[in-house]
Structure formats: C-alpha cells, structure tokens
C-alpha cells in the first residue's frame, strides 16, 4: 500500500455519463491486480475539508505508455454521480490527485481454469475489464472468456470494441434495445455450467438474483464477487465497511472486496 500523487494523463467519456481517466503513478500500479482498488482523495489539497473522505475505485485498465517502459499507467472508470467524480472528470492533463493503493484482495484465477465467466452491471464492468485484459494476455493458456454485461438500455452498454478481441461479449438490456432482452443474470444462468470459474461485479440486486441461480444448479459453484460498501478509510482502520458473511463479520476493504457469492448472499 502506497500513497502517491497520481498525474492525470487524459480523460475520455467512453459512453454517455461514464468516464475513463488514465493516471501515471508507478507506486500505485506496480503491484496492482485486477479486483484491487485505490482510494481517491477528492480534496486535492489537505486544507480542502469537504468532501473529507476519499472514495474507492477499482482498477479498470493498465498499459505501458511505450514498449520500452517498465512502469505501467492505470485507468479508473466512473460515472458522474457526485462531487468527487465530477472533480475527477474535470481535472486536466498534468493535474495531480492523491491516492492510496493498491488496496484489498483482488480476483483469484486458477491456473487450470480454461473457461472464465465474467458478469457485470454498471460501473461494475471496471474490474472485469482489468481481469479480461490480464487473462487475455495469457494466449498460451488458451483460455475462453465470456463477459456478460447488463444495462437498462443500449445507451448504458459498455462498448464492445474496447474489449480484447479474445473476449466473447454478451449483452442483455432490460428494454431490449441491444443484445438479449432481459437481465444479465439470464446470461449468467446460461453460462454457469460452462464456466470453470465465475467472477462478478455489479449492483447488490444483481448479486441477489445470482444466488438462487447458483443454488438451483445444484453444484453450489463458487462465484467470486467484488463488493462495494460505505467505506471511510479503505485501509482497514475504520471498521465502517462491514460485510456480514457466513464466516463472520468481514471488512470489505481488507478482507475483500472479493467475497464468495454464497457466503454473503446464501439465500438471495
């Protein structure tokens, strides 16, 4: 865990209301893994007391600025939902913002897993893209990756062209304006038995809907979910981000944000 002033490289609106900002801060990206997160200190100056607390964002993407670079840049994906995200989107290249990271326990992929199922909704796509990127790099392992994404309508769908070409992208929209009419959990149900490992990140109702699907399957297959809770510190010292699991009270920031679906939502 390090604290560093990340330098803004560029910001882009990748679909309506959803932004991606690239940052340069080797200390924050060097050992970061898909599913881990950073705390972004919105008040750029220490004297800025409102907003007071930092906000958690999953790593969305990593890249090398040039083939010769040994240090990775990283990107965060976010929707404009409040003062912090609005400030992030309005920052100019060269501006700096304090962050702490990498934090938490990210996704764990078994070496032997050939078929990976990724399920996301909303900005929950961010860590799944990081995972898809990382696993697509291992071409020699001949992995198959299916990414299922759900949105209300076409305008909220993550653009397919931004994904690695190896990823099979399946979309469900509630209004049927793109992909399969219905919910992303319908796609999840169809692919569950195919998958050697499943990973999900999205809103709580999505997790709740996934739970009975996993139990109905009869195998109680593990599904790694990435959770988001109210969180003050992100570093394990405030105890604000409690997650009540079958294995006791856990802290989302330190014990998670990766949890087992049925440990947290055993009954939906």
């Amino acid at each position: 865990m390090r604290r560093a002033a990340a330098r803004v490289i560029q910001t882009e609106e990748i679909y309506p209301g959803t932004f991606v900002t690239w940052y340069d801060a080797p200390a924050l990206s060097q050992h970061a893994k898909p599913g881990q997160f950073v705390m972004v200190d919105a008040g750029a100056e220490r004297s800025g007391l409102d907003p007071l607390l930092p906000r958690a964002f999953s790593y969305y993407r990593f890249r090398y600025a040039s083939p010769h670079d040994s240090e990775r840049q990283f990107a965060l994906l976010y929707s404009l939902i409040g003062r912090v995200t609005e400030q992030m989107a309005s920052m100019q290249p060269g501006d700096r913002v304090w962050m702490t990271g990498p934090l938490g326990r990210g996704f764990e992929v078994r070496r032997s897993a050939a078929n990976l199922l990724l399920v996301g909704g909303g900005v929950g796509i961010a860590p799944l893209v990081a995972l898809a990127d990382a696993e697509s790099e291992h071409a020699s392992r001949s992995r198959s990756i299916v990414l299922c994404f759900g949105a209300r309508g076409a305008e909220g769908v993550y653009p397919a062209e931004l994904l690695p070409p190896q990823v099979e992208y399946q979309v469900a929209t509630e209004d049927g304006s793109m992909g399969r009419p219905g919910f992303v959990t319908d796609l999840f149900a169809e692919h569950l038995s195919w998958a050697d490992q499943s990973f999900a990140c999205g809103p709580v109702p999505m997790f709740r809907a996934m739970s009975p699907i996993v139990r109905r399957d009869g195998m109680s297959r593990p599904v790694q979910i990435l959770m988001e809770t109210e969180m003050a510190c992100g570093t394990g010292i405030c105890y604000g981000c409690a997650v009540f699991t079958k294995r006791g009270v856990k802290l989302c920031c330190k014990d998670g944000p990766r949890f087992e679906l049925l440990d947290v939502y055993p009954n939906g």
Partner: protein
Amino acid sequence: MSSSVTDLHAVRAAAARPLTPSLSVDLAPGAKRELTLRNPVMTASGTSSNGLELARLFDINRLGSVLSKGVTLKPRRGNPTPRIVETPAGMLNSIGFQNVGVSKLLSDVATVWETWNVPVVVNMLGDTVDEFARLAQVLDGAPGVAGLEVNISCPNLDVGGVAFGRDPVAAARVVEAVVTSTTLPVIAKLTPDVTDITVIAQACQDAGADALCVANSFVGMSIDVNSRRPRTNRPVAGLTGPAIKPLALRLVWETANAVEIPVIGCGGIMDGRDAVEFILAGATAVQVGTASFRDPFAPIQVLEELVQYCTENGVSDINDLIGAVQVD
C-alpha cells in the same frame, strides 16, 4: 571581556544550529507506573484499528502513543450497516464496538505490541461497572499494554457507553473501579455531550484518573430526505472530523482550566497547526483520528508539522506550549 566574546560566540552558534525541540510529555505524573510519551502525538481509539495496519506503512515507534480499538470482555459483531456517512467536513460513525474480545486481543495482538517501542494504550468498555473492573484486571500486567483508556463516552450502544459519561457519579464509579483493579495509568475518555464537562472531569480526577481524553465523538444525526430514514444504522451516531474541532477545542480549554491532571485533546485534528491549537488550549497530548481515514500517514504528518512549528517559533520544550494561550 574575552569571556563575553566567548558567550557571544556560543549564542551565535546556538542560533545557527537547528533547534531540536524537546517533545517528551508525561501523561501520568505521580502514577504507580509512568506513561511518558516521546512526543504528544497519539492515535485516537477506533481510528487506527489496533495499529498493525499503520505499522506496515510507517515506523509506528515514531508516534507518542498508539490507542487500541475499543475492546470488550466478549467479542462483538458490531452494528449493522450503514456504519459510516459523510457530513460536511466530518463524518458520522456507528461501528458498535466490533472487536475480537480481550482474550484474543491479548493473545494475538498484544504480542505484537510487545515488540514495539511505543506505549500502547488499550481503550476498554464494559456494560457494567463490574465489567470495567474485570477488564482492568485482565489487562493489568499484560505484556505490551502501557495504559488503559476508559471509554465512558461511546454513543453507539444500547447499554453503557455514553450513559456512564453523562453522570458524574456513574463516571466516578467506573473510574474508581478501574483504578483499584490495575496498576496501569488510567485515562478517562469523556463525552462532549454534557452541559458542563468540568463537573464530569473533576469527578473522574477525584476518582483517581491519571489523565482525561477530551473528547469522544459528538452525538449527531443525518436523514435521507428521499427515504425519510436516518442515514446510519441507528438514528443517531458519532460525529467526528474537522467539523467538531472548535467545539472540542473549547472543551479542552474548559477542562484543562478545571483539573490538575493532564488533558489529551481529540477532535478534528488534521495537521500540525491543529495540534498546536489544542496544546495551547491546555492539552498535554493530542489524538489524531478521522484524519487517518483520509490519509493513513496523517499522525506522522501531524508530528512532523508540530516539530516544524516548534522549530520555527523557537519552542525548545513542548511543555512550554501547554495551556499557553493568552486570553487576556
């Protein structure tokens, strides 16, 4: 004449040297066991877990003292979520004393504290006076434990907590029960939510407290106007952060003028100048809390800025600053 020239040289040489202020403070003068800190910067209970996370980030031994998260006799799950909500320049918390219980704290955590070169003070809380006494007995003489902070001010519980701290008789009974059950220095952590804090402070002093911590969080509230429900798991919760700093500072000043024992200032300290304010108001030491949520290095930064203030202002001994605010 030659001697006066030498003196002048000595004075000039001293002025050229960077001043290294003496920062050591005594939190329990005259106690059975001393609680002397190498500097006045402590962590606040409940804002640094048990110190292990911060110890991975920086040299924890640089701090004056580390406070444990509040511990109870039995493990507690804590309150449901949401436990945290941000407010302007502050936050409300309702954690509810999630902790592993005193036995596990001693077996798993105090064994690490024992290897540190910084005094660790255990914040402890009971539902009854007897539970406070039993906790004090269990913690007395435990390796790695340098002092006790008696929590009679937690606003997030159904039983005990702030109820003890609002009544001078109850507060004194708790402090007396702890003091007679331990040889460790005892700090009473007071609630700010009283009409006159000096009454409670004097009661705790008379009951044998070695020092007072002023103060715990203020009881606050936040309502979601869409759902028309409180934004925390219980209707009221503890307000901390810079929003409460002027209030806490006033309480420290009032308390320090009313008691003989050391007062520890706590409430919204974000930087070194905030710490200086509390010391000028009468605090012998300060606790850094909510600032660590924003930046886990905050306690170290507060310390460095405090040293910088002393150096820049010719303060050779931090004790000279305590209560040095000029009000006339």
